[in-house]
């Protein structure tokens, strides 16, 4: 409860300063909107369904792109981890590729796929694929060998060995990579939507700019933060906590 109080005080002060600055009209309202204006924008956006539609479109792209990159990343990661040659060569390439911001793939994606959904999906996949691959590769190496042996000993082979033993055994080692992959994918998606316009939260952000509606810009930014936080805080943290409980690992604080 004390923690909640500290948070409440912090945010009250923060919004208070914001409201004060807006009230003093240090900057004109179209450059620096008031908190009320942002709240009104949020309400209006949800009321005319434009925010709902944007969220729906963006989330659909996210889920599709992210699932694709998880599946691809796992296959790739396992492949790299199981072959010494690939590990030396591909492993290095993957790490160096990770320093490339995924939005850099957009020009290439547009040339390949045109201004289509495929292009934006490609950017999302490229955003998270490397994180997932590297996480899977290291997870596979860090995972104690005993689980694989015990699985084979008890009659698990091929895909069943992977699905029932190797995957769950490596999960504690790859969950942070999966989380990182999601965060990267989310960023890639929003930047992609901002440049390549067709629905979604990123486009809404750019529309606010085009209309000189700063309140809407801030409102959409808050929305983007909120969704990112909810997925991270609810989905991934719940999975992590359940994993830790099952495995008896100390809960990370």
């Amino acid at each position: 409860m004390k923690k909640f109080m500290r948070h409440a005080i912090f945010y009250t002060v923060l919004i208070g300063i914001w409201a004060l600055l807006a009230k003093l009209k240090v900057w004109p309202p179209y450059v620096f909107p008031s908190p009320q204006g942002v709240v009104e924008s949020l309400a209006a956006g949800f009321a005319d369904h434009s925010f709902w539609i944007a969220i729906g479109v963006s989330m659909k792209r996210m889920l599709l792109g992210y699932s694709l990159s998880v599946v691809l990343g796992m296959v790739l990661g396992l492949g790299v981890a199981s072959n010494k040659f690939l590990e030396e060569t591909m492993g290095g390439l993957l790490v160096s590729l990770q320093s490339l911001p995924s939005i850099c793939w957009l020009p290439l994606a547009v040339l390949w796929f045109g201004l289509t959904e495929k292009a934006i999906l490609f950017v999302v996949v490229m955003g998270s694929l490397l994180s997932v691959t590297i996480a899977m590769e290291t997870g596979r190496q860090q995972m104690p060998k005993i689980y694989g042996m015990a699985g084979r000993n008890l009659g698990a082979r091929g895909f069943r060995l992977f699905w029932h033993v190797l995957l769950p055994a490596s999960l504690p080692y790859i969950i942070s990579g999966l989380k990182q992959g999601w965060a990267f994918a989310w960023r890639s998606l929003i930047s992609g939507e901002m440049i390549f316009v067709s629905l979604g939260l990123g486009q809404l952000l750019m529309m606010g700019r085009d209309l000189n509606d700063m309140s809407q810009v801030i409102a959409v930014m808050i929305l983007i933060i909120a969704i990112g936080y909810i997925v991270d805080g609810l989905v991934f943290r719940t999975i992590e906590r359940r994993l830790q409980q099952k495995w008896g690992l100390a809960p990370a604080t």
Partner: protein
Amino acid sequence: MTTNPISQPGFSEHRSPVRGSVTPHKSGLVPVRSNGNNGTAKLTLKNLSLTYKSNGSSRLLALDGIDLKVKPGEFLCIVGPSGCGKSTLLHVIAGLQQPTAGHVLVDDNLMDGPGTDRILIFQELGLFPWLTVSENVEFGMKMKGIARAERQEKVQYYLRLVHLAQFKDSYIHQLSGGMRQRVALARALATEPDVLLMDEPFAALDAQTRDLLHDELERIWAETGRTIVFVTHNVREAVRLGDRVALFTFRPGRIKREYKVDLPRPRHLEDVTVAKSAREILDDLREEINKSLEAEYAGEVLKR
């Protein structure tokens, strides 16, 4: 307590036909050479050898021409100094490691690769922490494709057998060391293997827990009639549990000698007869331990 009728009280004083130098002891031990002969064997090892390649040039002969037969329902213990290849032998029998030469046969059928007819209980157990106790026990049956209803029934049976029925929904980390051992035992037994392989399963336990598990293992063995190959470095444990004890040499791993343990069951670790028999084997083992120590001090011990 269940009594096992296979051993007769009293001492047999047969001399080993090959190594005749062994003086007969009044300890219930009978040195034997068991190459082939009498009756069907559950598990047969034929001229099993394994060579490790280490650093390209040097080779390490871990197992050297092992011939061994284990009768159905027999409890065989293998003792030897650490690093002598006992664990490797179990891995080879389980099919997790390929021998360089030789064969493993179960009921005269040639084995190739792992199978649920030979289940190994690892030294570090390898229980799955993401599954509950009952899911762990169920795992092997699930892989075998046994129907759900039958699986549930057997899980219940085997958990009761190891006295863990009320812990079926616990996760592994919530259990004590001794309880984990019993889960591993139940998981192995639930696949109903022809041969149960145990790799120093009780080495990390405290003395009381180990004594208790000795009793339980003996009872479960009598109840299920499984064939067991049990590896340990503890000679007394081997004499307490085994129908027969095979002594391994240090390197290359060979069977130096075998002893039939002719003591009545149930036995106890503190029994004078057990201690006496152990003493006798220990004298033979000492030589091998010295060899292993020499190798260790010379810095030659390779990672197992």
